């Protein structure tokens, strides 16, 4: 097996905007690319690998390479797996570096669903010809309902309660109060969450992530280069990816693909869930977090609700602080994709550069995990384990 655990995240940048009126998606991509280069202390010329998803306007990253001015590309990867894309990109970049296909990889993500009025869709993704479409029901059902059905089944099977789901939002809001860029900075109580209107029963508005414009970028580099840079070193020590779908009708939706992706990442890193000091968990909905807590192995299956309700997700109080920037639930979920922002806060924690009020003391091992697609049917999970060096 080619080890992916041989590359470093050397630069990151999160666009401060949450609503990008009057800025093109291309410019957002470029802004975050330059931001990450500056953070790393690298220049445009150093980039020889480029990774992006379908949010990058134009065919397969070409237009963005041209617009940004990437002149030395010898590797390109446009893997699109929804929100988890960028976690996969980090892993793919490490593999490409290990295989000698590139030295410094740039990953960009940006979109503006608010300013463009597109709403809760994935830019650049056209599912019109999908074979399952013919068998869709006569009523169009937004994605929130898929997660709502996961939540209801979880409640049925494991006695998870709306209050327990609410605790996930409460924890995120406790962190978001320290993030001046967070879309929702108000601290919320369980009562506040339960008072918000039902969106997709049993999920309430507060159980859902925010819709925002913006984006972020990451630069991955080979060890020799990383060691010459001045920023705290963050090493990718393990990664995993896994796909799950309806499988012809044989599919237990009480387990996500995260079971396999996390197991692979832990195996590669040679560590256990208990070793992780901080986790960025995909938080499209509160139930997404509960499911991943269980599937990654932070708690037994069915215990995610209790784990959250015991305050474990809150930094400074709990066993496993999560999404200390406020996450998608409170801060940012640009382009309806949360994978990039999950990585960014994981890197900040690993560097010891999160907001002091939420920075975990011991940050030697952190994890970022994403679920792209629909947890109730087709989805792709990606897990990355990062170590401070």
């Amino acid at each position, binding site marked *: 097996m080619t080890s992916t655990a041989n590359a470093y995240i050397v630069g990151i940048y999160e666009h401060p905007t949450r609503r990008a009126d009057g800025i093109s998606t291309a410019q957002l991509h470029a802004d975050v690319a330059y931001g990450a280069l500056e953070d790393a202390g690298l220049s445009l010329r150093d980039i020889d690998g480029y990774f992006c998803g379908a949010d990058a306007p134009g065919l397969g990253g070409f237009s963005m390479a041209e617009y940004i001015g990437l002149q030395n590309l010898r590797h390109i990867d446009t893997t699109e797996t929804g929100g988890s894309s960028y976690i996969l990109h980090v892993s793919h970049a490490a593999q490409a570096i290990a295989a000698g296909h590139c030295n410094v990889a740039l990953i960009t993500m940006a979109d503006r669903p608010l300013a463009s009025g597109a709403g809760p869709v994935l830019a650049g993704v056209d599912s019109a010809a999908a074979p399952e479409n013919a068998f869709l029901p006569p009523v169009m059902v937004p994605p929130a309902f898929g997660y709502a*059905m996961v939540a209801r*089944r979880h409640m049925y099977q494991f006695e998870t309660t709306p209050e327990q789901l609410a605790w996930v939002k409460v924890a995120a809001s406790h962190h978001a109060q320290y993030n001046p860029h967070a879309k929702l900075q108000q601290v919320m109580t369980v009562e506040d969450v339960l008072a918000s209107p*039902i969106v997709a029963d049993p999920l309430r508005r507060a159980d859902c992530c925010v819709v925002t414009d913006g984006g972020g970028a990451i630069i991955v580099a080979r060890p020799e280069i990383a060691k010459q840079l001045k920023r705290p070193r963050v090493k990718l020590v393990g990664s995993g990816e896994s796909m799950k779908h309806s499988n012809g009708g*044989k599919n237990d939706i009480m387990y996500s693909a995260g079971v396999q992706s996390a197991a692979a990442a832990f195996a590669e890193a040679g560590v256990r869930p208990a070793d992780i000091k901080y986790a960025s968990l995909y938080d499209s909905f509160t139930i997404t977090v509960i499911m991943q807590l269980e599937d990654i192995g932070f708690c037994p299956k069915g215990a995610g609700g209790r784990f959250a309700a015991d305050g474990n997700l809150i930094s400074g109080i709990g066993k496993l602080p999560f999404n200390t920037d406020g996450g998608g639930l409170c801060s940012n979920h640009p382009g309806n994709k949360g994978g990039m922002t999950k990585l960014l806060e994981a890197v900040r924690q690993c560097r010891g550069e999160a907001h002091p009020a939420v920075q975990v003391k011991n940050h030697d091992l952190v994890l970022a995990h994403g679920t792209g697609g629909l947890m109730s049917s087709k989805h792709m999970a990606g897990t990355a384990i990062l170590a401070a060096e």
Partner: protein
Amino acid sequence: MKKKTQAAPQSFVTSETQEFWAAAQENKLLVKHCRSCGENHYYPRSRCPLCGSAQTEWLAATGKGTIYSFSIIPGARRPTATAIVDLDEGPRLSSVILDADVNQLKIGDGVTVAFEKMEGRPPAPAFTTAAAVAARAYSVGALKASKNFPDLAATVPDEVKIVAIIGAGTMGTGIATACLKSGLSVVLIDSNESALQKAESGVSSALERDVERGILQPELATAFKNSLTHAVSMESIRSADLVIEAVWEQLKLKQDIFGQIDKFARPNAVLCSNTSTLDIDEIAGATQRPQDVVGVHFFSPAHVMKLVEIIRGKTSTSKALATCIRFGETIGKVPVVVGNCYGFVGNRLMLTREREAARLLLEGALPVDIDTVLKRFGMPMGTFELQDMAGGIELNYRRRQETGEKNFLVDRLFELGRLGQKTQKGYYRYDPEKRGPIPDAEVTEIIEQASEHYGISRKPISDSEIEKRLILPMINEGAKLLDEGIVARPSDIDVVWQYGYGWPSWKGGPMYYADQIGVSSVLTDLTDLFARHGAPFEPSPLLSRMAKSGQTFSSL
């Protein structure tokens, strides 16, 4: 049922799936069975996605399954839930549940496939609940049973070709439209010329709407319009086979009108009143031929609503009744024969519900709380929305003027000109820019004043308490109607509520619902409510007898 024969678009029907879509046209669900691995899969593919084998074959599924999980789609006009269904044949699939009591769904409930006809493509797979299927089957039977009157079976009804309608108001206009659309000739009579003009244009625009919607040929519409004549003089009813009086709801006026009808109508014409609350026998008494007088109680808007209660007077002949039933059927209605009492069947239950809703307002609920509960229960509209639409505040006010009875809340609303939708405000306020009623702080304030006026301290009332206090008395009232002999059978009450008030066929009707929750549980709850809230909940003797003997309404 008409079958779609047009070829489906290429993208849907391929060699891989054409059998599936052919079966779908027959509401049959096919899945694929793999002869290699023995597994069934869905959606169907030529190669088994579980083992890769090409040895697959079609399997006719039962179409039945159970709910693995679901989520209700809020605010859908048609009840809809998204669901993951475990088919009895194995595969688990994502679909929707339609036309069912989605607010009562539970994981594990039985569902059954109900393909949905689509424009320009083959039917789309969807499901409905086993409970809804049973209720719909019951509803079909109930409708059939409502036509069964042994004492009328041998009577040959008279043919009705010309109808005279006296009173060209809301109801007269609607009834005239329904008659014309079925090819009958109509003479509309009103003492007020401008009412006649308004009625005529009302009929025309209803017909034109049908032409615009493509459901009526323009030539036919013209022919229908030409079959309408109007007059001020009562003499014009001479040619009518059937006369319907639809003037203001005042006994004196109606009696006076019937005296004139008696004078001008031809011998053996059937003489009908559309009264909603008055005693049909007292009206019949104003004529020399009470045997020819029958109540025909239409529902507003009369050219849309299907129900007609046929009220059997003390002396109504079989011939007159049979003619009214046939006439109702001719104009596309659902006639249900009922006895003579205040409110007949439909309004007896509705007024019971309205009275209790009014008490709930004083005790702590708001119109929107109550209406939300009723809609979640399955009603197309809440009681206050309905009253705002039908002018309930004004009716309530006027009803009490003779006796001088006071009602703090309704009197205040009336004085403020809050007459319902027609004045843009009633129990709610209405905004022409927005769909549906909007809760109004002014009403909340008046309701709070009313509570204070009656010395009632307001407190929160749970949704389940609201539901019980509104629905159980309706069942109780239904039981009383049965005991009083006003209805021939429990299912007639359900037919009345389905076709007159929109009780959904997937929930059967109040009496069917009573059977579903159990007569003894209805009795227990009513007994408890009687103890806590008094007389309106006193259980009917029939319910007690039924609970004792373990009978159900469907077995009565």
